[in-house]
């Protein structure tokens, strides 16, 4: 009994020491769930080419990534939104100087079930639906059914971006909020599943999650403008109205190993991976 306990204890200590030993060849990347697949793909390819380096990628949300950067527990934060002034102030207090790198673009797709007849909406209508002003599908040309609003939780950069750019239409003094009746789901995949199963639901997520089980909505800036589908070409040309930049944040200008990884992500190869994971490259 004692021997076993001792063994467990030794194993435990060993694990701790392995984690605690800060490896000079390792990079910790943390942040946006939207970008986690992209980060993983970069890390895999990068480690294939540089077998002596180790890159660990974890999600948790843009805010989680940025607060880890601030507390010094990761080297690179992935974020699907700009860093907030509050966060910069907090970082400065801790002697961290966040440095922003625009790494890719993402179109936010608005999706419904393929069984829903509505196929196009203006930004105005979208704002109406998500704030609860429009509550029935027939007001936007659909069936007589209550609209079920699906949103991400507030820890999601996607949630914040959608609120600021669609609900508030880029007005920084806007007071619009998601309708209280909006369902807050904890992941983009949960939204994808619920939309696929529910003909009266509407949700939004990064373009990477689009599949044949959901129907994308063509969006127009206003009722006179052209309705545009979310696609890589339309985001690149700037025609699709709901697209956003994706960022990496580092402490100060990246140096050494971190610079090597960031340069890789910005290289031709890195940007090819961006396209493969259904995002839009910043460099052609």
């Amino acid at each position, binding site marked *: 009994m004692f021997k076993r306990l001792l063994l467990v204890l030794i194993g435990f200590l060993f694990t701790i020491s392995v984690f605690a030993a800060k490896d000079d060849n390792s990079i910790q990347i943390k942040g946006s769930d939207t970008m986690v697949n992209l980060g993983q793909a970069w890390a895999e390819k990068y480690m294939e080419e540089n077998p002596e380096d180790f890159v660990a990628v974890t999600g948790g*949300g843009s*805010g989680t990534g940025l607060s880890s950067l601030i507390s010094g527990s990761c080297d690179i934060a992935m974020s699907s939104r700009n860093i*907030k002034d509050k966060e910069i102030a907090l970082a400065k207090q801790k002697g961290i100087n966040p440095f922003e790198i625009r790494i890719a673009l993402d179109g936010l797709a608005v999706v419904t079930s393929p069984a829903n007849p509505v196929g196009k909406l203006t930004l105005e209508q979208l704002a109406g639906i998500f704030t609860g002003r429009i509550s029935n599908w027939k007001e936007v040309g659909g069936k007589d059914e209550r609209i*079920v609003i699906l949103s991400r939780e*507030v820890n999601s950069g996607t949630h914040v971006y959608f609120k600021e750019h669609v609900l508030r239409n880029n007005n920084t003094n806007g007071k619009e909020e998601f309708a209280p009746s909006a*369902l*807050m789901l904890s992941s983009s995949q949960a939204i994808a599943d619920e939309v696929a*199963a529910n003909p009266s639901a509407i949700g939004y997520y990064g373009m990477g999650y689009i599949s044949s089980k959901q129907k994308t909505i063509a969006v127009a800036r206003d009722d006179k403008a052209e309705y545009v589908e979310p696609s890589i070409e339309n985001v690149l040309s700037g025609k699709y109205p709901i697209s956003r930049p994706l960022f990496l944040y580092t402490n100060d200008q990246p140096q050494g190993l971190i610079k090597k990884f960031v340069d890789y992500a910005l290289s031709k190869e890195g940007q090819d991976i961006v396209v493969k994971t259904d995002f839009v490259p910043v460099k052609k």
Partner: protein
Amino acid sequence: MRKLKEFIIEKLIFISGLASIFFVVLIFLFLTKEGLAVFKYASPVDFLTGKSWYPISEPAQLGILPLIFGSLMVTLGAAIISIPIGVACAVYIAEIAPLRIKEVLKAGIELLAAIPSVVLGFIGMVTLVPWVKTVFHLPTGLTALSGSIILAFMAMPTIVSIAEDALYSVPKSYKEGAFALGATHWQTIYRVLLPAASSGIVAAVMLGIGRVIGETMAVMMITGNAAVIPQNILVPVRTLTATIAAEMGEAVVGSEHYFALFAIGIVLFIISFIINVSADLFLHKRH
């Protein structure tokens, strides 16, 4: 030498005994320190009775009334489902079931307790949620009812095993006396055993409910998390626990949102403290 060994072991056990109390006190102090800070931004009345929960807006709206109602609605539903089934199950196991069935049932209930809540939540999401949607013709199946049903499964093992214990510890002479007076088996259970074991059964129910109100993962997955005050059980709700779990990752340390989440923690702590203490009172009444 022997004395020294004895002394050391005694002290070690003593320290271990105090450790849990020490931790509880530390946790409580930390919770209070972080949670009470929210009242710099919102008065206790606004916090507890405010109807809007928009923690990241400028200025933040920190009203947790919809969350309290969400938790209560889900818990009430789970209690209504799990108490009758749980107590009946305990009666069956303690009084009626033949030995072999009893063994199988007890093993099954222990197994139910061993299923991680995220697994129950996931199963609920793919099976129960669509079912609730079609059966009740709702716009969405992510409702308080779905949460209640899954939570009832989680409360059941606690209720059954403690209620069964309580029924066992009713002195045999009570039962024999009832039979001797010509009572049937059901009359004995209903009029003699259940009243005699009532304090233990109430404690079982309380502990089951305590488990339900603190449960997080499954409710976060299947109740929809919409922060509105529920009018009935067939609408989406957001619970206290799910709010903390979903938002803690984002909250900027030291912001009003962060403090508000800790204050929710205090509210939860108080609720489960009351439940546990009353369960304890009922348990001790028995002896």
